[in-house]
């Protein structure tokens, strides 16, 4: 039963108050993209064993989406941040690197 601190409310939100939304930072591909680009956007996922940047919705709370960096192996959370960040912010990356020196952001 996960728990994240919603970066908007600053409240620890119980998993049952949240809705998961899959991988974060996927760049939308619309008309004009090639078939394979569109396939990548729609279906291909990193699904890593390790640190995953992902989306959550504080659905029973403020109703806002946010991003989280979480390890899919240990469930450790390295921080949450706003959904409008197009890439993981510096402090999140720093925190991950501090705790997982060998981690590479791909």
């Amino acid at each position, binding site marked *: *039963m*996960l*728990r994240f601190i919603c970066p908007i409310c600053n409240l620890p939100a*119980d*998993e049952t108050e949240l*809705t998961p*939304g899959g991988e974060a930072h996927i760049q*939308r*591909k*619309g*008309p*004009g*993209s090639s*078939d394979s680009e*569109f396939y990548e956007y*729609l279906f291909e996922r990193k699904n890593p064993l390790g640190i995953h940047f992902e*989306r959550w*919705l504080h*659905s029973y709370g403020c*109703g*806002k*989406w946010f991003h989280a960096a979480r390890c899919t192996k*240990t*469930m*450790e*959370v390295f921080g949450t941040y706003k*959904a*409008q960040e197009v890439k993981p912010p510096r402090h999140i990356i720093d925190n991950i690197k501090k*705790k997982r020196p060998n981690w590479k952001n791909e």
Partner: protein
Amino acid sequence: MSARISKGGRLLDPSKRLSFSFNGRNLFGFQGDTLASALLANDQVLIGRSFKYHRPRGIVSSGVEEPNALMSLGHGANFEPNRSATTIELLDGLEVISQNHLGSLEWDFGFINNFFAKIFPAGFYYKTFMQPRIAWKHLFEPIIRNAAGLGRAPSLPDEASYEHFYAHVDVLVVGAGLAGLLTTYELGKSGLNVLLVEQKHFLGGHALSGDFEVNGTPIAAWIEKTKQELANLENVQIKKNFTLVGIHDHRYLIGYENLEVAERLGQSAIRHRLWRLRTKKIVLATGAIERPLIFAGNDIPGVMLSSAALEFYKLYGISPGDRTVVVTNNDLAYLAAINLHDAGLSVPLIIDVRDSSNGDLPNLSLSKGIRIEFGKGISSVLGKKRVSGIEMCSLKGEGSVQETIPCDSVAVSGGWSSTLHLWSHCGGKLIWDYKLNTFLPNSSKAPTDENGENFIFVVGSAAGSFCPSQIPQNIKETVSTLLNDFQGVKQKTTKILIREIRYGDCDSTFVTPEGAGEKLKTKCFIDFQNDVKLSDLRLATQEGYESVEHLKRYTTLGMATDQGKLSNINGLKYLANLVGKEIEHVGTTTFRPPYTPISLGSIAGEARKGLFKPVRKTPLHFWHEANGAVWEPVGDWKRPYAYPKSNETIEQAVAREVTSTRHSLGILDASTLGKIIVSGPDAGDFLDLLYTNVMSNLKIGRCRYGLMCNENGFLFDDGVVARLSEESFLCHTTTGGAERVHSWMEEWHQTEWWGKKVFIQNVTEQYTQITLAGPKSRLLLEKLGGSNISSENFKPLDFLEGKLAEIEARIFRVSFSGELSFEIAIPSQNGVEFWQRCFEVGSKFDIIPYGTEALHVMRAEKGFIMIGDETDGTVIPQDLNLGWAVSKKKKDFIGKRAQERIFMADPCRKTLVGLSLQNSSDKIPDGAAVIIGGGGKRSNEVIGHVTSTYFSPTLNKPIAMALLKGGEKLRGKSIEIPMEFDKALKATVVDPKFYDVEGSRQND
């Protein structure tokens, strides 16, 4: 015999006699007894039969690790199988029945299995019962199933109440033994908010059976005193009958509070309460569980753990037998011998498999005149339904008998296993301690929380401090590290001194004699409940099932209701021997929640019957109810399906509702339709991205039917959009779609197009939405008065904000029935009033309410699609001839790119058509498949399926819509719908608009 004696019994209240029944026999016990102690008090040593061989079994333990003493309790709605007698507090009037015997407990026909035991070793069923094939299902499987299964299932629904409770605490201490009490005592002074939980109905754990002193106070008195002191602390709470059953990710814990006794005594409305705890730190003071030694006949009733013998005596005043032989590999079991001896019972012999002991207890025993034999073991236990003696042998050899000692009980100890299940639930690992002969927490592979930090601390015998005198120091250190993690909280320690004699080391022996041959091994039980013997483990490894996990699954070792609490470590030790590895390399199987079984009722909590799932009700719900509505669940809503009159069938009611609406006037509660306001300077642009058609050019005061697709191009919702003002749109959605569409819009706005200035607000519940349909609908509205809705002034797809019958209303001229129709939104507070006004005024127009089915029939007659019927998540608008509502001009909208993919333009895609039956007395079934060509045979190509099918009261014939491959090209062609028995219905492919194709009625 086992019996109640006048000594011991720290938990008993001899003034309160309780009566209970066992297999119909009336027996007595006292307040404070467990069912197990009460049974023993009545010399009920044989208490059940084992799972596979139906062997006679007795009580072996005094706690949750009990594998044998499973009972069925109560009757009727209170019946419950598989309850272990050692964990049940005795209650007056308790009804108890033993389990798993064909015939009586004493004379069990199932015992016949025991004689075939030789051909039923572990996994025998994988090797046989294969021929003839049919026999497995009809013969062998039923036999196996009936033989297995322990207790009967309840036959009546459970009437008890259950509930959940959420709590946040700073520190949770699990287990109120000496270690748990001391920890709580220490933490209590810190001011932190502490919860101490104990699964049993008393505090003190094993220490309550001890005879040592804490700071000079005898242990029992110290426990009582500490309990009082803790009770006075504001920040500390203690819960008995409360088992922590699971530790889940991110410090989410599940606790199981057993209130059965309080419930039975009328002091609690709740039977079980399931706690969900979030805590900062957890201290496991869960103690240790004793292991049996393994020797032939170790399952015969009368053989029990030394700690059980001690506890039954100390806490409940029970003698396990008149003559008790103790057999052990450690010092602690001497406590049982000494205590029984001091109680005046006979302890003819202590068999100690060790060569000697470096502790004080053996000498103490000798000084009391108890005989000790070192380096010996048990070759066999004598007796069938209870112990009559043991045969002593030397530990080394193969078990040749040196002496036969008559006795009626055997107290056995094979060492102690620290209780660390909870440590492992969330990924914590264990290491084997060779000195203590137990697994201990591996602090370098501890479970971690969401911050990647350790959050579980282990103290007391769970951490390997088996001797009470070690515990205070262990706790002091733990508490100080724990408090480090709480800012500003300092430790205030008290000096605690526990004086206790020195315990000698435990030895690693677990099987006696060491050289036991095959014959003995087939009587050496490891898992009592599942009848797993040494010979089974040997066979499994011989066949290659030698990883612990294979071993477990092949032999069922540790899979019983005690989950191997008693058997696992012995099993692992034997496995290690068999495969020639150290136990730490063999590893353990995974510990999984729950620590002890919990009722399914408690998991469901209050969410049953009426509270199972929310029901959403419109403001008019009570009216529908009072007017005979039959309900249909739609999403969380309940909507009226139809309003049958007392003499009508539902079909007749639907037909009447349709006809009457088409002829005069029908009224529908459409409040469940989603209503979403999208407002802001960019609202139009934003909606252009969400709908397939253009919304930005909609005129104020006008409506447009819109479609929404997902990024895969598939249609998922439709509805009418109205432009309220320059910057504000009102989007209608399907009933099931309101929340989905609202969050869909929010998601795209927040995560992709946050630059667009819009606010999105779900106002579904703000309005009572009412549809008035039928040729007389305008007349009614005119009668209600307040707004100009004349045909010149108020065209199809117009809307206006005004008043009707003095009530503020928004009126939309839209039609889903094909009739002249108005949809009216009234603030929900006024909905009922308005609805009733419609009936008052409408009576002269023959107004009738209609339900969802009439609505569906009417829309099908018009060939309108229904999300969920014509769509199934794989359909694009073009398939439904709705290409006109998909903009070609727009650069982008959700689903556009997807619709450009190869398969979306494939000519063999299914498209929507109407079906007209050639024989109009037929009815096309829902979902029927459609083929081309005759015969209804399998060989024919399936070209699609029926999406909607109704009998049309308007046209007086069946109508249907279907999605067919290349549907458009099939117009006018004949297709077939195969039915049972190779029959087929014949139909012609037609336009799905069956009624009023020009739309003159709705545009009137």
